[in-house]
């Protein structure tokens, strides 16, 4: 039961669902299997904790990171690098797109509609049921509809990311898995994987899950850690 992605893969979800952390870790994981991996930071709405903060760590691992020009990296301006549309038109290996949060963050995807035309695209919704607005199945479905409306694309699967950061317990992971299973049944969307922090792995019985587990190494850390 492994995660095997290729082509264009877009990561969406509500604010703070852990999209960026999941996207980065997916990139690293898929790179380790020997694929060519590119990741584009399309988060134009959130000014902090973006893929751009771990550019060097990703580049060292052989992952191609597509960002706005250097001088605008710390700006809260909606700058979309022209490299992004180019990379979508000519995808190779795995092309990961880390979109911004909510429908507002997904709006930028609609502006790439021309580039997406005739391409097979997978778009995954990251869900953390311990976050506001996604603690119910209805809340998650509402966000799915809003993101699909804004992006003009269909969500094709779910990634479970139940966590309370440092305070996550095995119980949270099991509850979170049950939640995304239910969401998957209700929405008809397949569950790609669930994310589990590396330090929790030995406390978890992964045989309880019928989907792959993405081992999550926290890369967007705080300055006192």
């Amino acid at each position, binding site marked *: 039961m492994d995660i095997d992605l290729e082509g264009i893969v877009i990561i969406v979800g509500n*604010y*703070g669902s852990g999209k960026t952390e999941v996207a980065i870790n997916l990139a690293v994981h898929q790179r380790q299997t020997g694929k060519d991996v590119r990741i584009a930071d399309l988060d134009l709405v*959130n*000014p*902090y*904790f973006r893929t751009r903060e771990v550019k060097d760590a990703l580049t060292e691992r052989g992952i191609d990171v597509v960002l706005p020009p250097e001088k605008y990296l*710390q*700006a*809260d301006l909606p700058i979309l690098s022209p490299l992004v549309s180019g990379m979508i038109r000519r995808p190779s290996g795995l092309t990961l797109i880390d979109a911004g949060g909510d429908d*507002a963050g997904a709006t930028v995807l609609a502006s790439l509609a021309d580039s997406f035309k005739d391409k097979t695209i997978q778009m995954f919704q990251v869900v*953390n049921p*311990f*976050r*506001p*607005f996604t*603690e119910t199945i209805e809340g998650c479905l509402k966000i799915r509809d809003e993101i699909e409306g804004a992006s003009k694309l269909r969500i094709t699967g779910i990634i479970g990311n139940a*966590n*309370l*950061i*440092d*305070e996550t317990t095995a119980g949270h992971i099991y509850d979170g898995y049950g939640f995304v299973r239910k969401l998957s049944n209700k929405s008809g969307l397949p569950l790609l994987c669930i994310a589990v922090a590396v330090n929790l792995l030995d406390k978890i019985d992964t045989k309880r899950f019928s989907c792959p587990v993405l081992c999550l190494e926290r890369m967007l850390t*705080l*300055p*006192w*850690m």
Partner: protein
Amino acid sequence: MGKVLMKGNEAIGEAAIRAGCLNYFAYPITPQSEVAEYLSKRMKEVGGLFLQGESEVAVSYMLFGAAACGERVFTTSSSPGISLMSEGISYISGAQLPVVFVNIVRGGPGLGGILPSQGDYLQATKGGGHGDYKLLVMAPASVQEAVEMVMTAFPLAEKYRNPVMIIGDGLIGQMMEPVEFPDHLKSEPTNKDEWAANGMDTRKSDTPNIVKTLHLDPKILNELNLTLKAKYERMKQEEVRYEPYNIDSDYQVLIVSYGTMSRVCRTAVDDLKESGFEVGMIRPKTLFPFPEKAVREAAGKASCKVVISIELSMGQMVEDVERSVLGQRPVEWYGMCGGDIPTPEEVMDAVKSLV
């Protein structure tokens, strides 16, 4: 209800609702816009009101008006927005109205940058607007503490009939931590009848409450200023909050630091302790009133050779630290204010270089 994972900005918005505040006026600005985003959804759910003003100046007078009517009301902004509100803050202070302000500080001066800063220390604690007024200023170091400070800010603002400001740097607004909303911090305004201009019938009173800031008679204006001064003195007696850290050790250096910066300092104190170098820390939780006595006593400890103020500003807190230390020890400064936050290693080097 269990804990939820929230961004500081979202948690601040939710905390206000849980405290019983259903009126929010604001204007978006990075890095605090998520408060408005969050409350634009949540206020509808709880039957409250979010109104986006046409500018921060307009917002400050919406707050004035709502507070004058006896409504719990608050706003959030970031540095340049607070500068624009400063006129209204002075008026609100002069009219003795309870309003809660949250400043998620970004780098300055001018437009500066959108990354974390503590460069509004002086603006918050020494004025900003005109006239003899002071704000009660609290500075959280975690998302949970931001929640608790927002929830306590409303009754404090009413107790003193004075604006309260919560000042957090950009990281406090943007980072996510697990939080809960303590039920015991929910409160109701108790002294509304003393000041709210909400109708004689409602208050069952014969004397109208007049809300105004124009006092042309010098004696009356002087009286008002004496009343305000007495309030600030009372705050100094009753509202000082701080957290001592590693203060029982025989520390050679005393750090004074608050907010996000204090969390980096805490890691540095722990790491230095492991290498046998003892450092104490006082973390002010209220910036006005400043924990003068705690800093003075901690600086006076026999083992302490030097005091250092560590901030995300160019030493704006140093004067308050010096004022507290009263010349017993030299007072130094270390910090940055471009948006980067010093690492624990950089803090350790700065501290070690002092002795």
